[in-house]
């Protein structure tokens, strides 16, 4: 054991040395360039100040998303255990809260590095932001104190506060933890959104100025978007963790436990994913309304291809999540695959058709000959699939299909006994069919009405229809299942290895998506530090092309995965020492050489 730990320690030291080496020259150069006048920018050789800030900021953001997503996830699980009495949820919640302390420290570490690097590399910008936001900087520090205190109480009090009123208090502590966490998220969100949609006033007290700048047009859309995205991230990372552990599990008990954990993680991820497109749509709408130029840069201008890539990633995520549901039906419910093969085939085909529409770009990549045959960069027939109306329609349909996957999974292996079951099923089928038709009709009609009608009424109606379907079918199904008799019990721990890989794939997609959107948000400001207010006059005022940016995103994703693996490993070290389950021994020691030698991308950042 000690041998293993030593190797871990060595790895940690080498990591710290790498980080140190990256930062040291920065300090040296900083000293060099402060000679004449107030310094506006500093740089480091090879990697470049912008790239370093980019990587550190992205890692910090991903970690923060994880640290904010996990408490929501854990708290929800704790409540489920408290209300439903299933102790394994409580165990799961505790297992994840355990991660929080080390994850929290890592996030703070990266936050600190980011802050120092920003001060070192972008003194002019930081000076300006400090001027405007210093009251909220102070508030942020205060929030951190509260959050830390609550976290310690929540974690260390877990076992002590299990019974009766104490448990209620513990649940309340969990609420407080999330409450502060949300503020910890939205306060810095204000600084970031201010950069893309600034509201500047020069009069008034410091607090008034900070408040005006905080309440900028994209602040709340980003807050909501990030809150949901964090839940999605937390869920899918939980799933991926379970997937990896499942692959390595040796005993039946372990397989059962991690199979179930993977299911819960995937479920929470999908649950959030269903709401995410709505939040994203709202954000885009606010950006357009705030500044048409920025909206066009994103959707029609130099970033338009990014959204095709985004569509592909989300497409893989939808496919992966549904695949996992479907695998769950055929493997966990013995003898059910023939019954569900046909519906699954139809759902798969519809999903693929939706994806095909979603991924079809408006302006196509075409050779000069192909363009001549099409009469321009738009395909005369498929080009119409490239605009917003079509994309909104299919994303709504994809949400509906994924929701139906879940309902199917939920109902699988159960037989309805209620006398009104036939009627209820007919009603549900009718609702679903009518809703899909209505969504499609609105989508097609959207081509023939002015944009504003489409955006304000049609798109919102489509969203409302989908929400209506979810809100009617969920309780109906729950009612049906209450009286249903179980024909086949779910058997946990029988999933094939590819299910574990599907979970890992989903988590990687979510992380990549967050990295991609980080690039999009930053690039949409083009050559401004603060849009329209403070111009970026550094040599890094340009935004790199998607291809070279993708390698940095890949690096961030990979490095973040390793960090998370490290956090999980640190947090579960105690379990092994106790020797509770002899099985865990097998998988983790392998992790270390993988980390040390597993970073082929590290060089390119």
């Amino acid at each position, binding site marked *: 054991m000690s041998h293993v730990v030593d190797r871990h320690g060595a790895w940690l030291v080498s990591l710290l040395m790498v980080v140190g080496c990256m930062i040291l020259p920065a300090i040296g150069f900083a000293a060099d360039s402060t000679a004449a006048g107030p310094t506006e920018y500093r740089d480091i050789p090879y990697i470049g100040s912008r790239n370093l800030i980019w990587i550190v900021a992205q890692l910090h953001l991903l970690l923060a998303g994880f640290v904010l997503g996990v408490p929501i996830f854990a708290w929800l699980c704790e409540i489920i255990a408290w209300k439903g009495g299933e102790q394994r949820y409580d165990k799961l919640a505790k297992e994840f809260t355990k991660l929080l302390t080390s994850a929290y420290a890592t996030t703070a570490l990266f936050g600190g590095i980011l802050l120092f690097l920003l001060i070192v590399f972008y003194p002019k910008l930081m000076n300006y932001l400090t001027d405007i936001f210093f009251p909220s900087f102070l508030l942020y520090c205060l929030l951190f104190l509260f959050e830390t205190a609550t976290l310690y109480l929540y974690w260390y009090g877990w076992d002590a506060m299990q019974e009766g009123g104490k448990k209620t208090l513990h649940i309340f502590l969990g609420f407080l933890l999330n409450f502060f966490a949300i503020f910890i998220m939205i306060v810095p969100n204000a600084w970031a959104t201010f950069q893309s949609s600034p509201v500047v006033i020069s009069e008034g007290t410091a607090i008034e100025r900070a408040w005006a700048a905080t309440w900028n047009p994209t602040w709340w859309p980003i807050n909501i978007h990030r809150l949901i995205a964090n839940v999605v991230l937390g869920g899918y990372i939980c799933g991926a963790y379970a997937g990896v552990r499942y692959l390595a599990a040796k005993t039946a008990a372990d397989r059962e436990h991690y199979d179930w954990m993977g299911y819960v993680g995937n479920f929470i991820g999908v649950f959030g994913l269903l709401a995410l497109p709505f939040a994203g749509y709202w954000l885009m709408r606010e950006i357009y309304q705030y500044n048409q130029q920025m909206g066009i840069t994103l959707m029609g201008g130099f970033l338009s291809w990014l959204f095709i890539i985004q569509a592909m990633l989300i497409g893989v995520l939808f496919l992966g999540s549904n695949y996992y549901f479907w695998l769950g039906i055929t493997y966990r419910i013995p003898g059910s695959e023939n019954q569900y093969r046909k519906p699954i085939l139809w759902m798969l085909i519809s999903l693929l058709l939706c994806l095909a529409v979603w991924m079809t770009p408006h302006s196509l990549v075409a*050779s*000069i*000959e192909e363009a*001549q045959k099409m009469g321009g960069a738009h395909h005369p027939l498929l080009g119409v699939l490239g605009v917003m109306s079509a994309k909104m329609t299919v994303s709504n349909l994809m949400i509906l299909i994924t929701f139906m996957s879940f309902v199917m999974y939920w109902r699988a292996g159960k037989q309805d006994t209620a006398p009104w079951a036939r009627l209820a099923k007919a009603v549900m089928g009718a609702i679903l069919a009518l809703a899909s038709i209505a969504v499609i009709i609105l989508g097609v009609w959207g081509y023939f009405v002015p944009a504003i009608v489409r955006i304000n009424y049609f798109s919102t109606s489509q969203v409302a229809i989908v929400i209506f379907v979810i809100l009617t079918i969920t309780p109906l199904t729950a009612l049906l299942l209450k009286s249903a008799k179980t024909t086949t019990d779910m058997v946990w721990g029988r999933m*094939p*290895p*590819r299910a574990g*890989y599907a979970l890992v794939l989903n988590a990687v997609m979510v992380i990549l998506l967050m990295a991609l959107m980080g690039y999009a948000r930053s690039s949409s400001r083009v050559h401004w530090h603060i849009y329209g207010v403070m111009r970026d006059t550094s040599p890094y005022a340009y935004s790199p092309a998607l291809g070279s940016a993708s390698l940095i995103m890949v690096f961030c994703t990979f490095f973040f995965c390793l960090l998370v693996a490290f956090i999980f490993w640190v947090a579960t070290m105690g379990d092994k020492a106790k020797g509770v389950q002899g099985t865990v021994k097998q998988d983790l020691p392998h992790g270390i050489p993988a980390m040390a030698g597993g970073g082929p991308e590290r060089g390119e950042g």
Partner: protein
Amino acid sequence: MKPETVTKWLIRLGSTVALLAVLTGGAVDGVAQESGVVRAALVTGALPVDDPNATMWNNAAPTVFPMSPQVHWPERIQQVTVQDLTVRALHDGTQLAVLLEYEDPTEDPDDAAAIEFMVGDKKAHFAHGQPMLLVEGGPVNIWYWKSRDNKGVDLWAKGFGTLRPHEHQDVKAKGEYANGKWKVVFSRSLVTDHPDEDAQIMPGQFINIAFAVWDGRKDDAGQVIEKGSQKAVSSWWYFRAEPPPDYSGYVYAGVAAVLALGFQFVLIRKLKEGQSA
């Protein structure tokens, strides 16, 4: 048997399918007529620089370019005589010859034609390198021929009103009129001593090319109808001189094929092991 092997298969199958699609697509494109690109075929022997009817021109694939009336500059025109321009090109490694063919019902002394190239790395607007507002543009190099003089003029421009002949004239041109059709041959060496003023043609590289044609017919009042900026023009298209054969690609291909063979070997061995296990 393992999902990992499925993953491998996914990748392999995907690339194979993509390859097949490209293969078939490429084959279909190959037989289609060239469009948008003038390809100067590499030939040996003297180029037919002053013979538009030489049989050697049959070695070069013809490309047809649609022509439009010039509308960009205020002194524009609504209709033009020449609707299509057929272009062929040949080169021998040092010298380039370009043949323009177009139908013109009348032979007039003011009939004229021109080829335009970008000079240097900066993109130039096709209308005489007109300055662009948000992009820093470069100059253009124009090869001009007029029926009256029946010789080539080497010109330079960076925006309307800046057109001027080079001090050094490198371009030759010769036109022949027969059966209601002009055939004009332009020729020049591929590279010149003035890279700032002349287009430099590197075999293998695509450069932009555009064309202009003036029908020198006079109206009833004795005025030439197409003159100056009132002319038939084309957009920017592509030009490429065929490079000498390069065999280094075969070496890379061989290495890749050996690697693929190795991959295949290992994969099948692993599959067999998996079966026995």
